[in-house]
């Protein structure tokens, strides 16, 4: 059997109710690299991530993770393969405390002290708010918690959907610092991001979607250097929108 990339989508077709959203998505995420998934609003990025997680069931095509087919598995079983998912909506449990949110993300509710130290180093505010209700935190703090849940344990793949949406530049810098350190540790990440500054800072590979298909694959550095390509693929000159 040909060795596949860590995550590989082949001609994935997803419908949401009566709507045909993904028209055959091909996407690869290589081991130890950060793959950016870019595209205009409504291109199908979130739908692609949800299809990987089994939150929408693809109607056709195949999804392989570590050479095993996962597109027929239930969401919890996909997560248990070591895939952490930070949704666009963050999925914070606002009625639970920060600690309880983190506990749910840790196997058996037990924390690895070294990992927890990492979390507090990246996002010191979470230590301060540890016993507060998560719903009382600001949007940026919630996003930090959402990312913290994903890194509370060693994961084989992290899938993050637009973490910088609506956040202040200082918070974005904190998230970038966190992702850069994860990247330095060879964490495999699939990241959807509209913020081109972040995309350029952390991305190794890039896939660009439009209208429910991937229209471009390449290296992030090449896309960052080619403004004409950016304009054609993303519709506006994002390089000036950092």
């Amino acid at each position, binding site marked *: 059997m040909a060795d596949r990339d860590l995550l590989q989508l082949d001609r994935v077709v997803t419908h949401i109710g009566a709507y045909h959203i993904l028209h055959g998505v091909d996407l690869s995420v290589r081991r130890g690299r950060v793959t950016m998934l870019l595209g205009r609003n409504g291109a199908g990025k979130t739908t692609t991530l949800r299809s990987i997680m089994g939150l929408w069931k693809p109607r056709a095509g195949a999804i392989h993770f570590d050479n095993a087919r996962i597109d027929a598995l239930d*969401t*919890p079983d996909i997560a*248990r393969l070591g895939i952490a998912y930070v949704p666009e*909506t963050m*999925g914070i*449990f606002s009625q639970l405390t920060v600690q309880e949110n983190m*506990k*749910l993300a840790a196997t058996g*509710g037990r924390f690895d002290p070294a990992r927890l130290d990492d979390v507090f180093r990246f996002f010191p505010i979470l230590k301060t708010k540890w016993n507060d209700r998560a719903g009382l935190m600001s949007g940026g703090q919630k996003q930090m918690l959402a990312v913290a849940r994903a890194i509370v344990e060693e994961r084989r793949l992290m899938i993050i959907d637009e973490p910088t949406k609506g956040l202040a530049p200082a918070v974005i810098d904190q998230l970038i610092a966190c992702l850069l350190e994860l990247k330095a540790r060879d964490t495999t990440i699939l990241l959807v991001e509209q913020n081109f500054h972040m995309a350029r800072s952390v991305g190794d590979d890039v896939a660009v979607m439009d209208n429910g298909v991937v229209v471009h694959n390449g290296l992030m550095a090449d896309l960052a250097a080619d403004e004409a390509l950016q304009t054609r693929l993303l519709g506006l000159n994002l390089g000036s929108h950092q």
Partner: protein
Amino acid sequence: MSAGRIASTRLSGIDWPANLLLPILALAALPFMSFSTWLTLTVAGAAMGMMLFLMASGLTLIFGLMDVITFAHGAFISLGAYVATEVVGALPGMAASHSWVASLAVLAAALTAAILVTGVAGLIFEIVIIRRVYGSHLRQILITVGGLIVMQELLVTVWGANPIPVQKPAALQGSVEIAGAAIEIYRLVAVGLGLAVYAGLWLLLSRTRLGLTVRAGVENLEMVEALGFRVKRLFVGVFVAGTALAGVGGVMWGVYQGLVTPAIGPEMMILVFIILIMGGMGSVGGAFVAAILVGLITNYSGFLVPKLALGSNILLMVAVLLWRPRGLFPLVKS
């Protein structure tokens, strides 16, 4: 509900206005009657409230976590009551004995048997009916109304359409005098059991990992699944627990009434739904407070203006909803 409102009710830790409603209502009734009457009615109301809570708690858990509306709950209450007639009838010597131990043992045996029988019936109901209609309230309502009819017919097939008498175990029949008021012992037992179940549910939900998962699932089920929890299994457990609680409520209510009919459970469902709506759909704490409110109002108004007994509950619900459109202790969903 606005974010500010959530913050203001949460920041202070305790939601005082909603929690004070109960004592205020109880005290407001006092000037209209003698103290001993008030005490009798209050204990009777609390006992009825606790039995209603047993019936409502399972339903509110099922709705809160699974987002499933089931109209069949009343049949599980009836089933529990019929199990009580069998168990009490099978232990005539113990039931007639005036020993406390024997009487409580009979009740405990009836409760245990009802938990087993209604739990298994709930499991079958979940597998055969409920899991096919996740996500569609309309289909849930239609099919569970059908399930209710089928279950009631099955009850009639097994136990007949005529009422079956069931006696309270002898030591629980009398009353004790407290502050000049005659308080039925059985009502005190019902209050004790209701409090114990409430405390147990509270501990389970707030102190265990399972409870943590349930609380998170009530708010955002998808995220709980994305964190690796097999929610479908949790659903089965919650449904079985919910029907077993209905069985417990059915035992207590059936023995309290002394006569069991197939309709004994479904008859209570109007009050149970009033409790769910008033307490905040899906909230266990809300169901607890609202059940006692309903029990008290039913007993006070039954004494003061008998014609208003059911109407007063509906009036109370309307008043609460005008004040808090989503109930006293609304759940937060995302």
